[in-house]
């Protein structure tokens, strides 16, 4: 009898906790939707994610060698965007291409966030010589032109999906580290940090319980902006012929533009080959950037004046 009440109480506690989270999320969603920039960004991201990852339902399975037809066909009712140099249907390739671009964008962003947040929090919180070295290192990597750097990294590590993700992350972490560091510097001076230090909290505890939760919203905004940059960088790498490739690998949008260029679609006037993938890259990059700026605006209302 007593046991059931404990279970019941625990259950109600869980439900209370959950409903609290749901309520918080609902409030956040309401603010998010009210911000026009963020809302447009979310709409774009959701649309392209659904198209890319719903590709099997939209255009059927990824084409195999058996499904090749004549190469370089112009748009027709059978092939809305014509066919590529191997004779694959370009619309199918285009719809699938987003998967690779988005996967690389998200994964690189996650790795860059972990790196950048760690460096930013560590340097900002501990200060002193640690901070000096980390901040100088951040500045140093920030100044290196990103395209030559990422090219050299990928070609040295030999191009494949994991190395491309790693290379993009190595190029993108410094800007996050800088933003997070300056946020940590202001959070660190707040009163509750001093109080918790006064009652004997250790630095590790303060970082975990107070610093990280307080910089997390900014990390999310930075993460979204980094996805935008990563998709962009991946497109450049692919255009250089350093994209993830192979007979079984899905071609990203950047790879499609690269192939169109290498196979002279430009001088032949085949705009349907290089036009749509480039447009998709642009719109997705813009979508993530809009959501990122929107989130920054929500978190820092002073920006809104701008």
């Amino acid at each position, binding site marked *: 009898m007593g046991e059931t009440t404990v279970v019941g109480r625990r259950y109600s506690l869980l439900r209370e906790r959950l409903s609290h989270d749901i309520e918080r999320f609902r409030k956040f969603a309401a603010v998010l939707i009210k911000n026009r920039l963020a809302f447009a960004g979310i709409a774009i991201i959701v649309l392209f994610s659904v198209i890319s990852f719903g590709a099997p339902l939209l255009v059927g399975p990824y084409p195999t060698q058996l499904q090749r037809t004549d190469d370089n066909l112009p748009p027709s009712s059978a092939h809305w965007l014509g066919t590529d140099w191997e004779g694959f249907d370009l619309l199918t390739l285009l719809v699938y291409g987003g998967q690779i671009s988005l996967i690389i964008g998200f994964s690189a962003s996650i790795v860059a966030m972990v790196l950048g947040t760690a460096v930013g929090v560590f340097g900002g919180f501990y200060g002193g010589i640690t901070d000096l070295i980390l901040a100088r290192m951040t500045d*140093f990597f920030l*100044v*290196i*032109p*990103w*395209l*030559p*750097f990422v*090219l*050299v*990294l990928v*070609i*040295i*590590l030999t191009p494949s999906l994991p190395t491309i993700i790693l290379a993009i992350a190595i190029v993108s972490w410094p800007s996050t580290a800088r933003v997070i560091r300056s946020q940590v510097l202001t959070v660190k001076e707040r009163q509750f940090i001093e109080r918790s230090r006064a009652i004997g909290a250790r630095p590790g505890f303060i970082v975990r319980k107070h610093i990280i939760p307080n910089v997390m919203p900014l990390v999310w905004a930075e993460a979204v902006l980094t996805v*935008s940059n990563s998709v*962009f960088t991946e*497109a*450049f790498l692919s*255009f*250089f*012929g*350093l994209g993830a490739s192979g007979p079984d690998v899905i071609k990203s949008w*950047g790879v499609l*533009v690269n192939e169109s*260029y290498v196979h002279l679609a*430009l*001088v032949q*006037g085949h*705009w349907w080959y*290089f*036009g749509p993938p*480039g447009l998709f*890259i*642009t*719109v997705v*990059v*813009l979508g993530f*950037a809009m959501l990122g700026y929107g989130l920054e605006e929500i978190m820092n209302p002073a920006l809104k*004046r*701008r």
Partner: protein
Amino acid sequence: MNFRRYLLRKTVYVIITIFFIASLNFLLFQVIAGDPTYVLLPRGCGTSNVTGECPLRAALIHEWALDQPLIVRFATYLRNVFSGNLGTSITYQTGVPVATIIAPRLWTTLILVGVATATTMWLGIILGRISGWRRGRPADVIITLSTLFGYSMPSFWVSLLLIFSLSVTIRIFPVYWDFGAYARMDLLSTVLDYMWHLILPVATFVITNVAWFSLTLRNSLTDVLPEDYMITARAKGLSQGQQLRWHALPNARLPLVTASALYFGWVVSGAIVIEIVFTIQGLGQLTWEATTAFDFPLLSGIFLIATIGVVVANAMADVLYMFLDPRVREA
């Protein structure tokens, strides 16, 4: 701070940064890339003499101390690089010093980047002024949205679109960088022909990068306009143009210089891709050729030069900032 002391400090900073860039370069190409005798040396000497004694290989092993321990290799590398020896090409032009290959290409890229930056800055200031002054009005919304859209477009794609529409479909501009194909031309026509070939690449630059300047100026104008001295300027009856020219712009100009510092890194990246699509024989085209030929010494040299270029340009922008801001200059 004394201006001369500032200059000295900046110079020391640049030299230290260049040292670290060289170290990073060493780390990338001689440590992470794997066996340097495989990565940095030509594969045999021509087709007939693959296994036999190879003078170029032996010379390069000696020159870069590739048979020595890591620390000796690092010292040798630094000594070579700082005395101007950037390496020897192994596949692209086997046996030719990298510096000799890069030097003529550097000029083409510098001209392209210089003209493009000047144009982008000029247009960015015009657009930024309009949208900063008319914040929230249709003109501002249109300018902000279109420059942001341009900023999101990959430059290779913009190049393709421009060539497709204005060189292939409507034949106004040249498709290839065939400048100098007509040998007998006087100076004026040479310059005109050069500019003719530059228009589309520069247009690509402007479209993809103008947001840097227009948005920065817009935001800093937004900060400046509510200031008290702007109200005074209006109160004493200055026209809008005078308010803008005499009071708003001089104060809003500074963040522009800061923006241009970060801009150089982007410019180098943009130039590489634009040169490829427009077949301009510059550093970017060379990067593409070095990448496809797996010429690691050449790639390493290009990376070094491009990065040092950006660092130096940044330092120059900092000094300019110091020079332009009286508060910093006289403090």
